[in-house]
């Protein structure tokens, strides 16, 4: 019987069994940021421990950085203290830091792949649940807590239970206007926000095979929203093509040997998965959330569901969601007024996300009264978007073009919703209060759908706004 990539990578990084039966797992690559690391460094100092492999930890600053005025000291004193603490810790322990002025700064899950630090068949840990993003490269990439950040700094290992593997096949042909974001929102809608507990998700099928690395990252990114700790795609020519020549990737003969190794680590054809789920691409439409968790989603042309028709265990959450979102059962979500449009985040802040929108922007403008902001995922994305004229297209259409960071995905910097504003957002979480205002309302959707909402001032079907409907066949 063949083995999955998960099993092969797990075995290759298995240091030993702990006395309670858990695995001591080597975390080969460690990424840190300013929010979940300062306490870990504090714990290290309290325990008089040092950093075991400083060259295997890479840092950047993303959550708290302002996206408009970037000069230090930041107006927010707490944010200013956090960036300085990270800078100090990286200098003290000899850790590579992609600092604000480095041209390599950005959201940690955008920077890792961009720099070629994220590689197939590796284990990656980061004090951030969206670490699952890196699984797009065939890495086992897991979000960890701060005490585990300490564990990785001190030992380069963590204690963990082996996960089961669920293979999710997405086969067929996506319709125009349906993107990776819709695929993962649909998967979470089908399997539920708790469906992935105890599993790693392996994504495959011909839709995933045809996806670019950036689309695969979008899918893997939101794996955690489905309850699975990590998700991955087996490495293939698309993966190698993306990585070749990136700063931290091997070169020359080392590159050839690495590719050969990576190929061998992909799941074998005759794997016996713990579970298999098949999704038909044709069943997926542009998807939006109507509630307060990412599983509460519908196709944009569906009506808001009626909690009274739901199973007992879903009803209370659904009622709470509708009350928060100020939506009524059975009404269309199309046409709901939008106050803010946010394009960015580790889910959809990459160049291809911006390109997909930009090609439709000439001749269109953000609706009056809508605040529309674009926050590139990294300084690298920002520079490319400027060079390609994409940033100007956004600016001309009335979007604010900002600097790289997490921004309004979680409102830890000055970019926040106000009051009960409704935000069309390309981010990953629609939890109550997630975007910085306790009463703020988030509707998750693909970047192109966010653009459609920005231009019309309401939740809209991008296929209609941008003329993407397939011609009706006679």
């Amino acid at each position, binding site marked *: 019987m063949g083995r999955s990539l998960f099993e092969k990578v797990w075995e290759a990084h298995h240091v030993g069994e702990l006395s309670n039966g*858990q695995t001591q797992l080597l975390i080969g690559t460690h990424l840190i940021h300013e929010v979940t690391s300062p306490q870990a460094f504090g714990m290290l100092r309290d325990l008089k421990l040092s950093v075991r492999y400083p060259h295997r930890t890479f840092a950047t600053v993303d959550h708290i950085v302002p996206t408009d005025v970037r000069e230090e000291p930041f107006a927010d004193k707490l944010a200013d203290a956090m960036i300085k603490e990270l800078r100090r810790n990286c200098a003290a322990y000899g850790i590579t830091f992609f600092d604000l002025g480095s041209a390599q700064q950005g959201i940690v899950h955008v920077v890792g792949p961009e720099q070629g630090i994220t590689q197939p068949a590796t284990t990656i840990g980061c004090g951030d649940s969206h670490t699952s993003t890196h699984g797009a490269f065939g890495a086992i990439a897991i979000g960890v807590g701060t005490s585990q950040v300490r564990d990785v700094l001190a030992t380069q290992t963590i204690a963990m239970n082996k996960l089961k593997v669920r293979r999710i096949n997405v086969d067929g042909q996506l319709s125009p206007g349906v993107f990776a974001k819709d695929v993962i929102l649909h998967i979470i809608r089908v399997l539920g926000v708790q469906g992935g507990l105890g599993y790693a998700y392996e994504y495959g099928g011909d839709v995933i095979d045809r996806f670019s690395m950036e689309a695969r990252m979008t899918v893997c990114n939101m794996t955690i929203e489905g309850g699975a700790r990590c998700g991955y795609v087996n490495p293939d020519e698309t993966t190698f093509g993306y990585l070749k020549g990136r700063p931290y990737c091997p070169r020359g003969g080392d590159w050839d040997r690495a590719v050969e190794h990576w190929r061998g680590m992909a799941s074998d054809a005759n794997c016996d998965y713990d579970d298999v789920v098949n999704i038909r691409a044709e069943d997926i439409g542009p998807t939006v959330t109507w509630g307060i968790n990412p599983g509460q989603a519908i196709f944009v042309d569906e009506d808001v569901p009626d909690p009274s028709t739901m199973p007992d265990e879903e009803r209370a959450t659904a009622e709470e969601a509708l009350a928060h979102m100020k939506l009524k059962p059975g009404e269309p979500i199309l046409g709901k007024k939008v106050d803010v449009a946010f394009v960015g985040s580790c889910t959809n802040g990459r160049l291809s996300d911006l390109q997909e929108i930009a090609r439709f922007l000439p001749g269109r403008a953000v609706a009056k009264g809508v605040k529309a902001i674009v926050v590139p995922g990294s300084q690298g994305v920002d520079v490319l978007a400027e060079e390609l004229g994409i940033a100007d297209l956004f600016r001309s259409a009335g979007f604010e073009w900002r600097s790289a960071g997490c921004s309004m995905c979680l409102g830890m910097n000055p970019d926040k919703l106000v009051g009960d504003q409704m935000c069309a957002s390309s981010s990953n979480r629609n939890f109550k209060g997630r975007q910085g205002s306790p009463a703020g309302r988030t509707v998750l959707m693909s970047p192109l759908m966010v653009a459609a909402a920005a231009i019309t001032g309401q939740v809209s079907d991008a296929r209609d706004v941008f003329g993407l409907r397939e011609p009706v066949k006679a």
Partner: protein
Amino acid sequence: MALHKITEIAGGGIFIPGDDIDTDRIIPARYMKSLTFDGLGEYAFNDERKDAAGRDRPHPMNEPRFAGARILVSGANFGCGSSREHAPQALYRWGIRAILAVSFAEIFFGNANQIGMPCLCLRRGDAGRLGGEVAAHPDLILKIDIKTLSVVYGDVCVAANLPAAVQRVLLDGRWDPIAELLEKPDQVGAVARRHAYMTS
């Protein structure tokens, strides 16, 4: 690093009803702008406890009769969302020492356990009944026995679930694994050397 053995957690309960209570609700991100976890207890469930003007809203954590609660009772998928250890840290610093729920999100479960705040699963019916009792009787004392995996309150005893490995580290006082992770640096080094990417 000597840790205390966790064999029993006893004390008053507090019921936070609902499924999918996410980490943004447990501790809103804006309170994570800090270099330490100190003082986080004050902001546990802040946006549910306070209105926009900072006034108290009806919430069990605002009720003096639940102020000394040590055991939190909730629904399914408790702690879903982000990996922020700030969430269990905030609850711990508020006074919580164990959580009973229908199920837990994986990262939250591990984070909570690693700081010595065990998370045990109850059957949905049992969790609902216990929650109701806790809400109605703030003086009710709950006893969680980690050895027998049971919860006793009044004359009721219900089964609780905990993976065997977790049960063992609690009973042995090894719920923070750092000491054991530090024990075999040579073995870690040997596995690391097998990987070309680790040496670059």
